[in-house]
């Protein structure tokens, strides 16, 4: 499946899909040999071919380092070789703590900083192709805008720069102001705007020209719960419109609620990629049993269960291999079983696990992240 870099993606209409096994519906785009021919992590067993859409973003070993220090120059790595593919129509969350490399990745893709190595293709074009820019929208982290302009003037200016025709532009600007709830403040200079209002302007300018692909850098940062909800709704709307959304965040609940897939980055290195449902469904080798009782049966304790009583209910966690024996205890004691579920890893646990220092050689680590 490997192909030389630079081959048009259109020549690869098929990708080799391995659907994830498990209790959850398999995702059609989470585990695949992408059009770079990268071997990708496989978790499942159902193998088949599926026609997929074009890749929206293909990042091939993109890396960035800076020279720091005045006299004694030393290299500071901001992003280690990153290999990642995002499909069209996908909502992808880029997770990581502050300084992990999320913003660097976005700046590289936007052409604001230049890579030390590697390349990327956006919507089938090289990332430095000027044609790309008219099809993407970008919201920087904590955006600042020309504060001498009003919201309406700013959107009109960005519409001009994006090449939106004059007739269409006025309607688009009004539509965006309405959509982000800024119609009443449309003629107020941005210097009088609150942080939340600026974030709304930022979102409006990012989607003003109806881009196919939207990059959002920490879109929920600094917003109150209501503002965060509105941004989440907006991202959902973009998904329904078939847009591809690539957003960075360190708020896991947002990623869990919105993303088809997430990538975890730490210290400039991609630590893992996968569908949220897949990452959080990895069994821990334990089961959780909930049943009606006012005390923990002695038989369960002997099986090594960690149990707690809550009113008339008992919640017990015990090793998966003890499942049959535990059910036998409940049957013997004539206790009513409410539920039995495998213990799943939360996204937070997955995230924390990936924040730990990597073990083993770098090359090995990289193999698992080339999705």
């Amino acid at each position: 499946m490997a192909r030389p870099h630079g081959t048009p993606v259109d020549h690869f209409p098929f990708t080799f899909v391995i659907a994830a096994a498990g209790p959850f519906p398999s995702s059609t785009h989470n585990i695949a040999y992408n059009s770079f021919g990268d071997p990708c992590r496989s978790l499942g067993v159902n193998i088949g071919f599926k026609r997929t859409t074009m890749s929206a973003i293909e990042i091939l070993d993109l890396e960035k380092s800076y020279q720091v220090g005045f006299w004694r120059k030393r290299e500071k790595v901001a992003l280690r070789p990153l290999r990642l593919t995002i499909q069209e129509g996908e909502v992808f969350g880029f997770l990581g703590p502050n300084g992990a490399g999320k913003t660097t990745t976005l700046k590289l893709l936007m052409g604001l900083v230049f890579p030390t190595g590697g390349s990327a293709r956006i919507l089938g074009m090289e990332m430095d192709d000027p044609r790309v820019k008219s099809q993407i929208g970008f919201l920087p982290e904590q955006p600042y805008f020309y504060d001498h302009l009003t919201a309406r003037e700013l959107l009109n200016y960005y519409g001009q720069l994006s090449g939106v025709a004059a007739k269409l532009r006025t309607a688009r600007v009004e539509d965006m102001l309405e959509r982000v709830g800024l119609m009443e403040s449309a003629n107020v200079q941005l210097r009088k705007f609150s942080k939340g209002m600026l974030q709304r302007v930022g979102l409006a300018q990012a989607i003003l020209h109806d881009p196919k692909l939207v990059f959002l850098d920490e879109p929920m940062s600094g917003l109150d719960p209501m503002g965060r909800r509105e941004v989440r709704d907006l991202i959902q709307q973009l998904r329904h419109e078939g847009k591809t959304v690539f957003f960075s965040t360190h708020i896991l609940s947002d990623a869990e609620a919105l993303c088809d897939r997430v990538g975890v980055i730490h210290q400039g290195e991609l630590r893992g990629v996968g569908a949220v449902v897949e990452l959080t469904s990895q069994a821990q080798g334990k089961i959780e049993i909930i049943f009606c009782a006012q005390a923990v049966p002695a038989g369960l304790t002997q099986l090594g269960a960690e149990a707690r009583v809550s009113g008339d209910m008992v919640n017990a966690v015990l090793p998966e291999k003890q499942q049959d024996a535990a059910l036998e205890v409940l049957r013997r004691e004539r206790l009513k079983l409410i539920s039995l579920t495998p213990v799943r890893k939360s996204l937070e646990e997955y995230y924390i696990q990936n924040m730990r220092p990597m073990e083993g050689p770098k090359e090995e680590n990289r193999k698992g992240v080339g999705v």
Partner: protein
Amino acid sequence: MNAGRADARIGFIAFNTFREAVRDRVLYNLIAFALLMSGAAILVGEISIDIERLVVVNLGLTAVSIFGVVIAIFIGIGLVSKEIDKRTLYTVLSRPVRRWEFVVGKFFGLTGTLVVNTLFMAIGVLLALLYTAHKFEKMDEWVLVALYFIVLQFFIVCALALFFSSFSTPLMSAVFTFALFIIGSLAEDLRGFARMSHGVGGMLATAIGYLVPNFSALNVISQVAHGDPVAGRLILYNTLYAVFYSAMVIAGAVLIFQHRNLK
């Protein structure tokens, strides 16, 4: 304008730069300048005998030049660096705007601001001239030529400020630009010194004399104050020189900015 074209995008960026300068009340100094000029003209009219015109033209044009250079440096040094610091540039360059278009647009926005600025200040000077002489004379047309040369000076100063702003801090950009303005105002003297010098020192003085912008050739204030005409050939040469020099400096700014990482 069609934004699919580079010139249209440059126009939009230039207009936004101009609009920013206007709204930041930079042009408000014009009112102060007009009042100052009128006041000075009245005062000069009272205390000067026979040389009112000479003093008003000298004072007025020098003030126009200094005010303009200060404004050019003041705005020019922040044109690029401020956009990087405030990150307003991110949302511009993530659109179909090439970096050179941004720099050129900024340059035209600033020069546009200064042309409008000079226009207002020129009105102040001419009104002062009218007050002292009660009528315009034939030789006053050379005052307009001197004003035109001052505008050409602003073009070069804007380009220099923008050039330094593309890689340096605002403070250092201001220092560099102002230093070059001073040295450039003495360019003729420097070239004269070079002609008299020999050896390495002479070669160095010649190189510097021709590398720095020749602001002294663009300064005909004293000449027109005395009512002397300006040769048509000088107008042509100065125009070509200012356009060529500014273009070279802007090209340098583009070259640097083109490869700059926007941290």
